[in-house]
């Protein structure tokens, strides 16, 4: 059995595992590519072109990032407002994933905008007719609120005596505000596409797009909590009871069912059935997205398969991947007939690097703060070691 190293530096735990070592390497590669991107523009690093001005960074880092971070608001909504107290175990984990998700979204956005030194402009030069303006403000405000909510967990450990009690007191107000903004911008992300009516493949465009994005962010939120907790239970032995998870995902499943019915309604009202089966990249992608991302998960979640651990995990993964595919389809598949765009290595590495950075921070935080359950999580199979020199050593020689 492998024993990993865990280092204590000023009372904080740093654990090094081979996986984390690789992730650190990915983050380093990302930083290198980021500097090339910032120095030379888009031409060298990305495959973006005038035909596909938005690519992987918008589709994955931003659209998927925000949707997957929906776990934060959907569980907060269920726990704090609708009093599903049994979900409280997942609440903090979901909150942390959301916060990290949003920070990554901001990082991705920062890379994707050309004149980043102008990024403060929209705070003063108000293009209020733009849906992006709303998204921009909501994401700014919501990230601040999430940081604040998370700060409560943080002050449990640091500055406990002075700050924590006051923060706990104002928290409910922030939770309510923090539930308005995510609902607004989740739907607004769909609203971004309304103006692209003449450019999108008809199967994806609909006047209900804002609602679709809101609903899918809700059900992918609970699915994401499932995926995340399946990782966490492997690494930290922190399992969410199966029936809690099943109930949580079933609520998502109901919304998914409504989503499916609305999509079908769209097909009838806009007369789109012929597009669905016409073949070609776009209609095939649409069929894949609907079949594997929506229809099969619905069958799983409302059948006895959901009683097995495997079934539930299958539902969660399919749903998450389905939403990822949906966002990519909206951003590029639907809009470009020639289909010439495929993300470049640079774009892919930066996206992977961002996700790795998120995972590393996540692991560090759950090991040091009370997020999964009542105590700090501890990596199973950890060999404790207190020497800072061996930390550096471990970075040089990961496997000893």
């Amino acid at each position: 059995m492998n024993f990993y190293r865990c280092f204590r530096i000023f009372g904080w735990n740093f654990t090094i595992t081979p996986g984390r070592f690789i992730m650190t390497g990915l983050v380093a590669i990302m930083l290198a590519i980021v500097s090339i991107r910032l120095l030379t523009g888009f031409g060298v690093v990305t495959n973006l072109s005038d035909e596909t001005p938005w690519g992987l960074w918008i589709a994955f880092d931003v659209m998927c990032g925000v949707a997957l971070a929906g776990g934060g608001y959907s569980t907060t909504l269920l726990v704090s407002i609708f009093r599903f107290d049994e979900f409280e175990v997942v609440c903090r984990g979901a909150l942390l994933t959301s916060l990290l998700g949003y920070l990554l979204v901001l990082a991705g956005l920062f890379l994707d905008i050309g004149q980043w030194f102008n990024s403060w402009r929209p705070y003063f030069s108000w293009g209020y007719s733009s849906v992006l303006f709303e998204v921009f403000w909501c994401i700014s405000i919501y990230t601040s609120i999430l940081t604040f909510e998370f700060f409560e967990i943080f002050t449990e450990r640091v500055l406990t005596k002075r700050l924590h009690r006051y923060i706990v007191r104002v928290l409910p107000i922030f939770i309510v505000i923090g539930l308005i903004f995510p609902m607004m911008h989740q739907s607004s992300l769909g609203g971004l596409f309304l103006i692209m009516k003449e450019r999108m493949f008809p199967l994806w465009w609909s006047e209900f797009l804002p609602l679709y994005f809101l609903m899918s962010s809700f059900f992918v939120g609970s699915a994401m909590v499932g995926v995340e907790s399946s990782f966490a239970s492997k690494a930290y032995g922190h399992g969410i009871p199966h029936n809690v998870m099943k109930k949580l995902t079933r609520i998502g499943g109901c919304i998914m069912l409504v989503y499916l019915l609305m999509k079908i309604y769209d097909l009838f009202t806009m007369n789109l059935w012929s597009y669905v089966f016409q073949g070609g990249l776009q209609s095939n992608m649409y069929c894949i997205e609907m079949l594997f991302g929506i229809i099969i998960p619905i069958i799983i979640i409302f059948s006895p398969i959901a009683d097995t651990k495997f079934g539930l995990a299958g539902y969660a993964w399919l749903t998450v991947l389905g939403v990822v595919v949906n966002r990519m389809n909206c951003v590029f598949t639907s809009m470009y007939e020639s289909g010439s765009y495929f993300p470049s290595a640079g774009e892919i590495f930066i996206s992977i690097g961002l996700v790795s950075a998120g995972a590393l921070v996540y692991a560090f935080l759950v090991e040091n703060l009370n997020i999964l359950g009542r105590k700090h999580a501890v990596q199973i199979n950890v060999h404790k070691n207190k020497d800072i020199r061996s930390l550096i050593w471990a970075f040089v020689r990961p496997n000893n």
Partner: protein
Amino acid sequence: MAVLIDITKCIGCESCSVACKLYNSLDFKSEPRNIKNGRIELDDNRWTVIHKYETEDKRIRFVKKQCLHCKEPACVSACFSKAIQKDEETGAVVYYPDLCVGCRYCMVACPYEIPKYQWDEQFPKITKCEMCPSRLENGDAPACVAVCPTNALISGDRDELLKKAHEIIASDSKYVQHVYGENEVGGSEWMYISDIPFEELGFKMVSETPVTKYTKDYISKVPILAVIWGIFLASLSYYNHRNGHGTHSESEEDFENPDDENTKDKQD
């Protein structure tokens, strides 16, 4: 200021695209970046291009392509920092690079795929035809219109040009009975008339509803929904509070113990 393009009169001499490059100091040496079906498309150094089309009966036509300066411009409505604005007086859709963040939402919003980007710059800008705003200010026609040797491009007041366009296509039966740009996505300042169906000349067939309508409808609903949702959440949360379910009250005590452990941890 509006422009009417009579496709039957264009001889494809490219004077307009040269004038455009000169007037806007674009790079003459730049390689074409976008080529579609053998035709050079717009790019950051080509704000206008001439496309050659040959019909089945071997007639050759040239189509000038540039921003149409929509009456309900999608790009203007899409820009979240007002870096593209429509000049009230001249109707020109003008770009203000100092305000631009570089999000490229305008590029994906434009129904005609007009705005292009400087992909190889460190701090790239959006590029597109701006109808030579400084010339319009002095009452001159845009550079391309001024140099056209055959009067295929004429500029003037939109209503008058539209009237004229309808007179021309009504008086001569060779013309298609349609003025492209009169109503397309809400109409545009630049309009075309032709003797060959517009579809065959690469024109995009779009609906007459301005695409900005959909975002307007949506945005106007958002504040009301947000307020209703907020009130609903707040009252529910208050109700929960009154019933002694303070969100974090119980957990607070539970966390005391691990806290103590930590302080100990930190000390040793």
